[in-house]
C-alpha cells in the first residue's frame, strides 16, 4: 500500500535527476516541508485549523512552490557541477531541518488524517485505515497521470528529451527553462502529496526526511535512473522485501536482506532494472 507513496517519492527524485542530472537530496526535505505545512494549516492546536482537505491541497501547492524556488534560487546556478549540487542540496535539507526545529521543536507529531475511519479486512486479517486507501489511490492517479503526460504528449516527451540532450532539446524548439521549472514543480507536488501521507501514516518530525530520501535513492537506482516504470516496480519490490525479510530472518534483520538482494540485482544489471544501458557489451 505505502509502496505507492514510495514510488511517488522515487519518481519525483528520478525526474529531477533525469532532466537536470541533479541528485536532489533536498527531495526528502521537501517531503518534510509538505508534512509540516499540512501540520501548520490543519493542526487543532494551530491558529488556522483548516479542514484537512484544504490543508492537503495547500501543502501540495506550497511544496511545489518551494521546489521551484529551490531550483530557481539555487540549483539553477550550480547544476553543471553534480558534486556541488548534491552537497548543496544536502545542506539545504540540513538547514531546513534546523529551521523546522527552531519553528516546531524536535518532538515528533502526528497529522490529522485527510479522511478518518478504518475497515477490517477479514480475509487478510489486517486493519486498513481509509487514509491508507486514499494514499494508495492518490499516488496511483498521480503516477498514472504523469506517465501519460511524459510518454504520450509532446510536452511531456520534451521532459524526457531534455534529460538526454539539452542541445537537442533547444534545437527542436523546447523551452528549457519551462521544462525544468515544470519538472521541479511536478516533483515538488509529488513530494507534497507524499509528505502529507508519510506524515500521517508514519510521523512528522524534523528527522523524517532522511529515510524516504534513502529509500527513493535506492528505488531509483534499482529501477534504473530516469525510468518511471522501474521506479514503480522497484518500490513494490522493496516494500515486499522489507516485509519478507522480517518474516524470514526476524525483525533484527529488517532491511538487511532487501539491501543485499538489491546489491545482487545491481551487480547483475549495472544500470538497474530498466535503466538505460550506458555501456554496451
Amino acid at each position, binding site marked *: 500500500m505505502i509502496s505507492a507513496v514510495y514510488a511517488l517519492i522515487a519518481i519525483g527524485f528520478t525526474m529531477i*535527476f533525469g532532466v537536470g542530472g541533479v*541528485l536532489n537530496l533536498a527531495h526528502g526535505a521537501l517531503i518534510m516541508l509538505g508534512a509540516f505545512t499540512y501540520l501548520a494549516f490543519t493542526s487543532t492546536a494551530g491558529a488556522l485549523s483548516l479542514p484537512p482537505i484544504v490543508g492537503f491541497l495547500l501543502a501540495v501547492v506550497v511544496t511545489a512552490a518551494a521546489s521551484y524556488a529551490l531550483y530557481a534560487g*539555487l540549483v539553477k*546556478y*550550480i547544476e553543471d*557541477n553534480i*558534486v*556541488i549540487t*548534491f*552537497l*548543496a542540496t*544536502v*545542506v*539545504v535539507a*540540513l*538547514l531546513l531541518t*534546523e*529551521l523546522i*526545529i*527552531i519553528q516546531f521543536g524536535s518532538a515528533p507529531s502526528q497529522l490529522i488524517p485527510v479522511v478518518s475511519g478504518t475497515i477490517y479486512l477479514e480475509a487478510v486479517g489486517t486493519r486498513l485505515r481509509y487514509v491508507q486507501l486514499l494514499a494508495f489511490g492518490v499516488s496511483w492517479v498521480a503516477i498514472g497521470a504523469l506517465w501519460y503526460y511524459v510518454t504520450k504528449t509532446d510536452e511531456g516527451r520534451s521532459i524526457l528529451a531534455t534529460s538526454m540532450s539539452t542541445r537537442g532539446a533547444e534545437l527542436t524548439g523546447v523551452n528549457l527553462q519551462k521544462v525544468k521549472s515544470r519538472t521541479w514543480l511536478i516533483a515538488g507536488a509529488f513530494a507534497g502529496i507524499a509528505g502529507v501521507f508519510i506524515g500521517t501514516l508514519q510521523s512528522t518530525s524534523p528527522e523524517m526526511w532522511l529515510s524516504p530520501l*534513502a529509500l527513493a*535513492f*535506492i528505488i531509483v*537506482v534499482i529501477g534504473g*535512473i530516469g525510468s518511471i516504470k522501474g521506479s514503480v516496480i522497484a518500490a513494490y519490490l522493496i516494500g515486499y522485501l522489507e516485509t519478507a525479510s522480517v518474516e524470514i530472518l526476524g525483525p*533484527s*534483520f*529488517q*532491511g*538487511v536482506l532487501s*539491501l*543485499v538482494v*538489491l*546489491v545482487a540485482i*545491481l*551487480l547483475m544489471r*549495472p*544500470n*538497474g532494472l530498466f*535503466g538505460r544501458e*550506458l*555501456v554496451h557489451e
Partner: protein
Amino acid sequence: MSSATDRLSTATGRIDQSLQPLADVYNRLFGDYFGEMNGLQFVLIFGTAAALLTAPFWGNFGLVRAMTVAAIWAIFAMSWDIQSGYTGYISFGHSVLSGAAGYTTAMLIHNVNPELSMMITIPVSILAALVVGLLVALPSLRLTGPYFSLITFVSVLIFYRLIPSFSQYTGGETGIQSVEVFTYDPFARYYYMIIPMFLIAIVLTLIARSNIGLILMSIRENEAAVNAAGINATKFKIFSFALSSIPMGIGGVLLVHFGGGVDPTTFIVVDRSIEMIAIAVLGGMSSILGPLGGAFFLVVLRDYVLTEIAGFPSPIRWTVFWGLVLVVLVFVRDGLFRKLWHGLDRFGGDRR
C-alpha cells in the same frame, strides 16, 4: 578595481620575490615530486605546517581539541579524495572503512582479549579496513556514476543494520566503550593525531602528483581513453580504493583511541561519509591538501568558533554552520584552498 589588484600584486609580488630563494631551494629538491610553488605559496604551506605543529603552545583547550578532531577528519577527507576526488567515482561509503578499523580494534578488545596490545590491534585493524575496502570495491566498481555512489551508500546501510543484529559482539547501538585511549592529556593527544596526519598527507601528495595520480584523474575524465591507452582502468580503480582504505583504517584506529570506543553514530552512519565529502569538496577536491585544509576549517568552525567563541545554542549554531557551508559551496566551488592557492599564484611575482 583592476588597478587596485594590480597595486596589491606589486606589493605582494615584492614579498614573493624576497621569499622566492627559499621556495627555489625547495623546488630544486622536491619540486619534481610535489609540484613547484612560488614564495607566497611556500610560506602558506610551511607556515601552516609550523602553526599546526605548534598549536598546543599557542592554542587554548577548546581550539586544540577541535584541531585534534580535525586532524582525524583531515585523514578521512584526504583518503576519500585520493579515491573519489581523483577517480570521480564518488563514494558515499567511506565511513564503513574507518568503521571497520574502529570496530575491529574494539571487538578484538571486547570479544577476544581485553589485554591485547596496540601492537597487534592497530595493524590488524588497518588490515581489516583494507579487506573491507576491497570487499566493497570489487563488486561496486563494476558500476558507474550514481549507481556506484548508491552501492557504496547501501554498504553503509548494510553495516549499520548488521551492527544491532550482532549486538552481542558489536555492542549494538551503544557500541563498545572499553577501548583504551592513547592519553587524556589534551596536548600529547594532539600529537598522536597530527603526526600521522602529516605523514599521510605527504605520502598521498606524492602519489597524487605521480603517474598514478595522472591515471586516476584520467579515469575520472575519460575511462575509455585510459583503457585505450593500454592501462587497466579497473585495476587502478581498485587500487585507488585500496590506497584509500589504508589511511582510512589509520584514521579509524586514531578515532577509536581518541574517544575510547566505537558506536554506530560516531563511526558508521552515512552522515559521517557525507561529512567527509563536504570537507573534501569545501577544501578543494582532488588536491589532497585542500581536503586537509577543509577539515581544519570546518571542524574548527563547528567545534570551536561557533560554540566556544560565538556561543550559539545548538539549532542556531547549525543553521549558521550550514548556511556558511552553502555559501562557500556556491561561491567558491573549486574549494577554499584551491582558490587561496591560485590567488597566491596570481599575487606572487613572476617566477624565475
